[in-house]
């Protein structure tokens, strides 16, 4: 009964809060209108589906903006416009992803599913073997075992070197330096390092190892590890630096005030708080170097056999494998077999990075701040 009385307080059906709003079907009208106009315009200059979709989207966003300005106000229109653009950005980002993934999957999947692809290396796979399998339509022989092992070893090696150095450097920059000359120098040179072209890093590592262990023996997995570290360190430093900087000072002070030493504060408070950002930065850095071709080619060489030793003999890696198979087929007259292996290897590489990403996310989940929203 009281409730009844109370609902009389309502201004039924004439809420001033919804006054002056555009009709709810505005978006549908705009979409339909845009589609028709786009079709008409394209009919004049030659219709194609992609163009039609793009033009419709553009017209839709524009017409929504104009109609909101007219029917409501500019602020709302601006808000709507940016919302549409942000959604649009997402869709645009998806297009190349879908396209690349489709290309890789459609060519690479049969290769990946070929029996023994992951367990085999390229020992004994000559042009004659490929020609035979292409001519007779049998399954393509050979695989990526050796490249997989090489890529993993080299990348793990580079990560083991770069992450501590990068993380510690960013800790130095954020926590210890007080903006002095030395920290400015490091920041500056880390910037410089991001500009090292990957091939130059490879040449440098090869040259350095040549002077250290002499020519010949310098071609080994470890040289590649060094080359990739040079590329990886600046990425790790810059991303972790950014992540450490956004940890609120309140938390550091809270810890200091409890009599906790600075280094423990850093390890136990600052890093856990920013671990999700750090993990994704590291993943990014790994993803960045695991796909490098040129520097590995000039440092670790090529191989057809699995090599587990980073410090001796040549080592194959996935990107080099992909590149060589794609550009220099084992059988020049039957390149299809190599192409299939190349795309399958690309698929393997992508899957590895995906798994890495999952791992990073898992780490982030396990350690991340328990957010409550306030």
């Amino acid at each position: 009964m009281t409730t009844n009385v109370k609902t009389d307080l309502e201004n039924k059906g004439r809420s001033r809060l919804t006054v002056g709003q555009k009709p709810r079907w505005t978006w549908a009208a705009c979409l339909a209108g845009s589609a028709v106009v786009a079709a008409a315009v394209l009919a004049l200059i030659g219709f194609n589906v992609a163009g039609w979709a793009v033009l419709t989207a553009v017209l839709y966003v524009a017409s929504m903006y104009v109609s909101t300005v007219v029917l409501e106000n500019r602020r709302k229109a601006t808000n709507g416009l940016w919302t549409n653009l942000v959604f649009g950005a997402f869709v645009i980002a998806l297009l190349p992803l879908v396209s690349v993934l489709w290309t890789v999957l459609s060519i690479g999947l049969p290769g990946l599913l070929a029996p023994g692809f992951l367990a085999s290396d390229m020992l004994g796979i000559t042009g004659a073997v490929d020609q035979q399998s292409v001519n007779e339509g049998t399954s393509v022989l050979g695989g990526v075992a050796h490249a997989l092992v090489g890529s993993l070893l080299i990348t793990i090696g580079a990560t083991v070197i770069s992450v501590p150095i990068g993380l510690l450097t960013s800790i130095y920059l954020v926590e210890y330096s007080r903006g002095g000359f030395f920290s400015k120098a490091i920041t500056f040179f880390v910037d410089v390092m991001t500009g090292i072209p990957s091939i130059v890093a490879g040449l440098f590592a090869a040259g350095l190892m040549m002077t250290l262990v002499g020519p010949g023996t310098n071609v080994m997995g470890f040289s590649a590890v060094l080359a990739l570290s040079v590329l990886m360190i600046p990425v790790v430093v810059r991303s972790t630096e950014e992540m450490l900087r956004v940890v609120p000072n309140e938390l550091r002070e809270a810890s200091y005030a409890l009599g906790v030493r600075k280094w423990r504060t850093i390890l136990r408070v600052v890093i856990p708080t920013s671990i999700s950002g750090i993990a994704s930065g590291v993943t990014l850095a790994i993803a960045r170097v695991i796909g490098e071709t040129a520097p590995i080619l000039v440092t670790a060489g090529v191989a057809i056999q699995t090599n587990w030793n980073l410090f001796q003999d040549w080592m194959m890696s996935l990107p080099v494998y992909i590149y060589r198979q794609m550009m220099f087929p084992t059988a020049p007259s039957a390149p299809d077999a190599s192409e299939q292996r190349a795309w399958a290897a690309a698929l393997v590489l992508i899957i590895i990075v995906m798994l890495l990403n999952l791992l990073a996310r898992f780490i982030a989940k396990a350690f991340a701040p328990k957010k409550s929203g306030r």
Partner: protein
Amino acid sequence: MSKRIDAIDLNVYYGKFRAVADVDITIEPKSVTAFIGPSGCGKTTFLRTLNRMHEVLPGAHVEGKLLLDGDDIYAPGVDPVAVRSNVGMVFQRPNPFPTMTIRENVLAGLKLNGQRISKGDADAVVEKSLRGANLWQEVKDRLEKPGSGLSGGQQQRLCIARTIAVEPEVILMDEPCSALDPISTLAVEDLISELKEQYTVVIVTHNMQQAARVSDKTAFFNIAGTGKPGKLIEYAETSQIFNNPQEKSTEDYVSGRFG
């Protein structure tokens, strides 16, 4: 064990800006001292010099002497960490560690420094500290939940519990009750009275009644104007400050009808 604090000609700077000038004060052990004064007069700043938290800010530094039981905490070679484990602090804004559970937050001071304690001991510390901060009843069933999920008042009491847990000799509190409801405020005030049996307590407050209720001595800080440094105007027994202040500005300030 409690400690005496003596500030001798203390000047506190933010870079070139002198925020607090020429403070001379002696804080007795096993007492509660309240700092009062208008906003911006440097209460927080001065408080933070007492456990060397001030120097954490870039450019911030201190001139003069600050003696803790006769040892200058700003003497060369003194480890600020040693100072801070003797002088605990509760901040104006509650700041629990977001990555930690409630339990971990209470144990932070012990655990973060790498001390090993048995689970039983830890449980005892957690309960004792949370009870001391009047938070036990509310959180005892969700000790493993993140500390940041609590309300503002709950968070502040969690921070007090965290500070008590390390059993410092001096406890500094910067407006610890400004986010608390009366029941928690009462609990904290009771706690302060209990604490002074053993510890030296310094508290910043805007609440005259609170100062009157809990403190033995009161220090009134004031500021002549923006850009000027804050100064210690009067320091005496609380009853004298509130009933019979020597300075005109003290009287003006405390005679306000505020709660």
